[in-house]
């Protein structure tokens, strides 16, 4: 019995050890995937480096075509606009070669060799990260190849050939933002009831959606949705904004406000716009936060914006209007 317990503990240590060793701990956002294959099988992929063999090999740049190197090319896929140019603005140098072919390799941080091998993207929002580390490429999307030694004068091989791994990751930034209507109206405001703005411009006497705003992003720290703009005005005459406390306006008093209701995704409406009442504490120069998400999970949150106004019996007749600017800021 005692021996069995020891065996269980022993196996637990082994399991934990290999779990830490082989499973990535960081969340991976991108779909960059690289493998060593033949030039013929790379197809729609992009060749990042060509090698003379699977191990103990020399390297050549993708621009070269030495036949023997055709059997071991680092082929990458998964990212639209992926490339191997060092000339485009969004590129990262992952290795330096002693020549364009039949070359030894050094890390990008070294300065002995002058032939750069790069991973690039035509989309500026693709954040490319390359690096090297021992044993594995945890924290990256993929392993490009391995080096016999670092930092310089190294032969190369397939990812499993050597302990020194050359790694890459591409995080494709994504942000989408849509406003369903750019013109809403209350119709005629009255001192005997609340009015709600509608996209038709005629307004409603019962609460209705004025517009909706859809947001999604994969920004690691999410986003904020802000509003800016005056209350309803007719020249110098203003309909009093409700302010920073969620309130249901009193019939017969001047009031202008909005509230929002979130559906889908992980975005949330913030106070004072999250209650069943209304609020408005922005102005023409000060943004106020309507909603936010702490993390960008790529799922769309739709915010239903409801806008309310009412007046007293003395408010001067005329056309009242304002422009509300909605802004979303992603936090990458």
């Amino acid at each position: 019995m005692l021996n069995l317990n020891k065996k269980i503990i022993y196996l637990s240590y082994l399991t934990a050890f290999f779990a830490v060793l082989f499973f990535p701990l960081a969340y991976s956002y991108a779909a960059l995937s690289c493998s060593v294959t033949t030039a013929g099988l790379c197809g729609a992929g992009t060749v990042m480096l060509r090698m003379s063999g699977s191990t103990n090999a020399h390297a050549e740049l993708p621009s070269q075509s030495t036949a023997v190197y055709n059997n071991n090319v680092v082929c990458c896929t998964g990212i639209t606009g992926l490339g191997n140019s060092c000339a485009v603005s969004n590129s990262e140098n992952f290795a330096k070669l002693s020549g364009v072919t039949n070359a030894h390799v050094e890390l990008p941080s070294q300065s002995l060799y002058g032939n750069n091998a790069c991973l690039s993207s035509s989309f500026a929002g693709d954040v490319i990260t390359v690096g090297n580390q021992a044993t594995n490429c945890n924290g990256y999307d993929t392993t490009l190849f391995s080096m016999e030694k670092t930092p310089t004068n190294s032969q190369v091989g397939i990812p499993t050939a050597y302990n020194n791994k050359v790694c890459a990751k591409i995080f494709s930034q994504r942000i989408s933002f849509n406003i369903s209507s750019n013109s809403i109206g209350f119709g005629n405001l009255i001192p005997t009831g609340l009015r709600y703005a509608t996209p038709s411009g005629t307004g409603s006497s019962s609460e209705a959606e004025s517009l909706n705003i859809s947001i999604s992003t994969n920004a690691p720290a999410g986003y904020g949705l802000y509003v800016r703009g005056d209350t309803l005005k007719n020249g110098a005459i203003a309909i009093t904004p409700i302010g920073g406390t969620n309130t249901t306006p009193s019939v017969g008093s001047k009031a202008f406000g909005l509230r929002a209701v979130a559906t889908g995704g992980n975005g949330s409406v913030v106070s004072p716009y999250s209650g069943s009442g209304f609020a408005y504490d922005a102005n023409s120069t000060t943004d106020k936060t309507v909603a936010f998400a702490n993390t960008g999970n790529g799922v769309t949150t739709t915010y239903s914006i409801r806008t309310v106004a009412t007046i007293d019996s003395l408010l001067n007749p005329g056309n009242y209007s304002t422009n509300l600017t909605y802004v979303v800021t992603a936090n990458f």
Partner: protein
Amino acid sequence: MIKKIISSVLMLALVFVSSGFAFPKSANAANLTVMSDTVGNLTASTTSSHVIKFTTPTGIATGKTIILTFDNSTSTTGLASTDVTVLDGANPITVNAGVPTGANWGFANTNPAITFTTGSGTVIAGHVITITFNGTNKITNGVVGTTVLRITGNFGDTGAISMAIISNGVVAVSAEVLGSISFSLSNNAIYFGRLGTGTNCYATTTNPPGNCTQTTEVEAINFVAGTNAPTGYTVSIQGDTLTSGANSITALPAATAPTPGGEQFGISITKAGGTGVVSSPYATAGQFAYTATALTPATLATAAAATSNTTYSVRYLANIAALTEAGSYSTSNTYVATGNF
């Protein structure tokens, strides 16, 4: 014993691997963190402010460049060093055109890229840099789609910030407030009864079967007026004095106290609420007048601005002389309220 040794070694290895000491990592330029660009207006092809924030893991040494490059047809044309403010944490950094001067950062605009060159100061690793473009000249948004701001240069870190440029980020909100005026009359028929020469007679809403019974001043009718018209309202009356065929009871042309035994027809008005006022000659308490005719209105009350309801209490007086012709006397007085919109 061997198992214990293996177990211990594995435990140490586990701690070693977990701590990250086993396999040193190296990467090229560090990625900037906590990056954002708050754009004042995301409408395509519109000028807008930008507040760009990022944290530099490496820090920024002296004489290094920080290059902000926008894509998607974004234009920085016209931006000058005076249009930008820079903060290192909460500490402002002065920016001057061209090369840096002392601790000032240099500024160069090569649309669509802005290059800052640090001065004699340094930025400590982990600090937040805030660059605000909100001066006279502003950045012009590109076309609908994703705009990416790339942050590069030789300071050691790089980053990118994506923004969603849309066709219109502004919502126009409209409402109309109609001009309104409220006006009501409490009654449409009032009566004096049979007039006499011995006492004053005041109209009431009750028709007495014989002689006038209301000999003290009393409200005959009231009217209520209110409006949101910026310059208020006017209430007028039009109509003859009491007439019976060709005969009439003389209307009082000015505010006059009632005197039994003489022909008198007039009204007197008091008010309550609102900001409306009774017009002369009807405002003097206890005195009566009537200046309207069948063809000419007379102003009874006015308000100079929008006002809530004012209630006007109208008292009617009629007296006759001994020689007043016998007959049934009547008139129709038309009340009109006009908003001054």
